[in-house]
C-alpha cells in the first residue's frame, strides 16, 4: 500500500476540527517554518522536493515561487485555486471537506515562504458547503493564534480569506481567477505580465492549486529530499487521483507516483476493475482536457512497456499514442460507451465554458459542438470528420489561454484513435442509434 502524505487522517472522526487535527500532528509545518526556517529556506525545500503543480499543468511549484517579484513596499499575495472544475476532477473537494486545516496549514507555511500577508482561497461557488467548513476552520485557526498578528510569536502576520466563484470553468485558469477575485468577468489576461509580477490588484501574486499547497506541509515536515525520494524521475511524491466512470470503486485515491496504471484500475486497494464485469474501452487519465487513450494504450505504452501513473509515462508516445497526468481526473469507459457521444458531450462543455474573448475559441468550440452533434445524431458526413480536424488546427495555439487547446486536443485524440467508430456513425447512422460500436481494434491486431 502506498504511503499517504495528504489524506492519511481524512476519515478520522472530528479531524475537521482544530483540536483533533492538532492532536494528529497538525500545524507542525507552521511551527517548524516560522520558528526554525527563513522564508527562503522553505522555498528551497519545495524546490528540492520536485513538487509539480497539481492543478493540471505540472509546472514545478518551487520554480513558480522563485519567480515572484519582491519590490520594496509592495504587498504580495498567495491565492489558492480551489475552483476545481476540470471534468473528472473532484480531489480538492475531498481534501478541503475532510481536512480543511491541512489546506489552511499549507496556506500559512506557503504564505510565509512567499512573504504574503494577505492570502485568499478562491473556491468554486457550487462548493458553498465546503466554503462554510473552511470558514469555520479559519476562525478556529485565528482563535488559536495560527492566523492574524504575530503568529507563534514570530512577528509574521497573515490574514486568510475564503471567497466563492459563481459557476465558470474558465476561472480555474489563473489569470481568469484573478479577474474574478477582483469582482469582474472571468476573462483570462494576456501574459506577460505574469501574475508573479502583476497579479491580484496589480500586486505580485502566486496562484497554486489546493493539492500543491497541501503538499507543502509534508515537504516542510519531512524535508524536500525525503519527499523527492518517493516517485520516479521527475514525478516525485504522492498524487491525489479522482477516479470516475465505469469502475467498481470510483473515488479519491492518494497514490505514490510510479504506481502502474494496471494496478490502479484493477488492484484491490484501488478501483477494483471495470464495473459490472465489462471490458475496458478507453480512459482519459488526467481530466477532460487531455487526450483519450484506447484500451490497448492504457496499461501499456505503444512501445510495450508498462504504463505508470507518472507525468512522463502517461505522456509516453506524445500525442500519437500518449496522454497526460493533468489534474489526475481519471475517467474510465466500459465497452458499452459511445466515443462519439462522449466527444460531443465534452465539446458541448467547452463551447458552454468558453469565455468568448478570443474568436478561434468562441466560434471554434461552437462549431465543433454542432458538427459532433450531427455525427452523433446520424446526420453527419465523412467530410465532417475532416472539418473537425481543420477547426482543431485553427483553435490550438491561437488563443489567450489554454481553454482553446483543452477543447481541441481531446477531439483530435478521439478521431485519431477511434476514426472507425466515427466513420461507422456516418455509414450506418440507423444502426448507430440502436447499439454501441463496441471495442476498437488495436492497429496491430487489425
Amino acid at each position, binding site marked *: 500500500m502506498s504511503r499517504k502524505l495528504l489524506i492519511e487522517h481524512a476519515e478520522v472522526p472530528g479531524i475537521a476540527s482544530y483540536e483533533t487535527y492538532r492532536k494528529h500532528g497538525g500545524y507542525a509545518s507552521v511551527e517548524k517554518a516560522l520558528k526554525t526556517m527563513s522564508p527562503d529556506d522553505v522555498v528551497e525545500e519545495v524546490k528540492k522536493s520536485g513538487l509539480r503543480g497539481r492543478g493540471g499543468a505540472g509546472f514545478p511549484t518551487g520554480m513558480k515561487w522563485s519567480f515572484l517579484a519582491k519590490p520594496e513596499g509592495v504587498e504580495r499575495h498567495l491565492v489558492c485555486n480551489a475552483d476545481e472544475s*476540470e471534468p473528472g476532477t473532484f480531489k480538492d*473537494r475531498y481534501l478541503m471537506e475532510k481536512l480543511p486545516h491541512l489546506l489552511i496549514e499549507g496556506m500559512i507555511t506557503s504564505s510565509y515562504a512567499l512573504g504574503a500577508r494577505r492570502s485568499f482561497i478562491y473556491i*468554486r461557488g457550487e462548493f*458553498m458547503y465546503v466554503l462554510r467548513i473552511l470558514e469555520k476552520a479559519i476562525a478556529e485557526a485565528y482563535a488559536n493564534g495560527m492566523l492574524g498578528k504575530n503568529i507563534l510569536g514570530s512577528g509574521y502576520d497573515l490574514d486568510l480569506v475564503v471567497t466563492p466563484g*459563481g459557476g465558470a470553468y474558465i476561472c480555474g485558469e489563473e489569470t481568469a481567477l484573478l479577474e474574478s477575485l*477582483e*469582482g469582474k468577468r472571468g476573462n483570462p489576461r494576456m501574459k506577460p505580465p505574469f501574475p508573479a509580477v502583476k497579479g491580484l490588484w496589480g500586486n505580485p501574486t502566486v496562484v497554486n492549486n489546493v493539492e500543491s499547497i497541501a503538499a507543502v506541509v509534508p515537504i516542510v515536515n519531512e524535508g524536500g529530499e525525503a519527499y523527492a525520494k518517493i516517485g520516479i524521475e521527475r514525478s516525485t511524491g504522492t498524487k491525489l487521483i479522482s477516479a470516475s466512470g465505469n469502475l467498481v470503486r470510483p473515488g479519491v485515491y492518494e497514490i505514490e507516483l510510479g504506481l502502474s496504471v494496471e494496478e490502479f484500475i484493477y488492484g484491490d486497494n484501488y478501483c477494483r476493475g471495470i464495473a459490472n464485469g465489462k471490458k475496458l474501452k478507453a480512459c482519459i487519465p488526467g481530466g*477532460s482536457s487531455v487526450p483519450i487513450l484506447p484500451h490497448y494504450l492504457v496499461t501499456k505504452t505503444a512501445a510495450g512497456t508498462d504504463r505508470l501513473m507518472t507525468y512522463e509515462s502517461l505522456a509516453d508516445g506524445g500525442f500519437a499514442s500518449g496522454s497526460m497526468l493533468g489534474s489526475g481526473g481519471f475517467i474510465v469507459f466500459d465497452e458499452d460507451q459511445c466515443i462519439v457521444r462522449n466527444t460531443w*458531450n465534452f465539446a458541448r462543455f467547452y463551447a458552454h465554458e468558453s469565455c468568448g474573448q478570443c474568436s478561434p475559441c468562441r466560434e471554434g468550440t461552437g462549431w465543433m459542438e454542432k458538427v459532433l452533434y450531427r455525427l452523433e445524431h446520424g446526420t453527419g458526413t465523412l467530410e465532417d470528420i475532416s472539418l473537425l480536424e481543420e477547426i482543431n488546427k485553427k483553435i490550438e495555439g491561437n488563443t489567450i489561454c489554454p481553454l482553446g487547446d483543452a477543447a481541441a486536443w481531446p477531439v483530435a485524440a478521439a478521431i485519431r484513435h477511434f476514426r472507425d467508430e466515427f466513420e461507422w456513425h456516418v455509414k450506418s447512422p440507423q444502426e448507430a442509434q440502436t447499439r454501441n460500436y463496441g471495442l476498437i481494434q488495436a492497429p496491430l491486431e487489425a
Partner: protein
Amino acid sequence: MKADHPQAVNEAPIEFSATTMAEMNRVIGLFPEGKQKSAILSVLHLVQDEFGWVSVGAMNRVAQILDIQPIEVYEVATFYTMFHLDPVGKNVLEVCRTGPCQLVGSDDLITYIEEKLDIKVGETTKDGMFTLKTVECLGACGYGPMLMCKYQFYERLNKEKVNEMLDAMREASNS
C-alpha cells in the same frame, strides 16, 4: 426587465433584509479598503439566497452597496452561470450533464426527472415547486449521476432516491 434592456439602469433598486445586509457587510469587510468590488460574487449569492433569483432591481441595489456602476454588476451577473436571471421555482434542480456523469447515466436521470415532474429542462412546474436545469461538471464525478439543489449535492442517484428527494423537498417547501 433584463440586464441588457436599455432602461435597466432606471429600474428601482429593491431593498434587502436586515440579515442579508449584515452578511453583505461582513463579506465586503473581508477585502481591503477600496477593493469592495471583490465581494461581488459573495454579494450576488446572498441576493439569490434571499429571493431565489437575481433581478435587475437587486443588481441596481448591489451597485449602490458596492459603490460601482450598474453595468459592472450586470456584466458579472450575466457571466457566471450560477445566478438565475429569471424567477425560478422554490427548488432548482441542477443536474450535471458532463462526460463522467453521462458515463454513469445522467441522460436517463434527466429524462426521468422530466417525466416525473412533467416539465422539460429549463421549465418550472405549474405549482412553482421545481425548476429543472442542466449544468456542466459540478466536481462530483466519482459519485454520479448527481444534482445540486440549494448548494446541497445529491449523489449516486437512482429512481428511488429521486422520488424520495422530491418528496422531501416538497414537504420542506410546504412547511
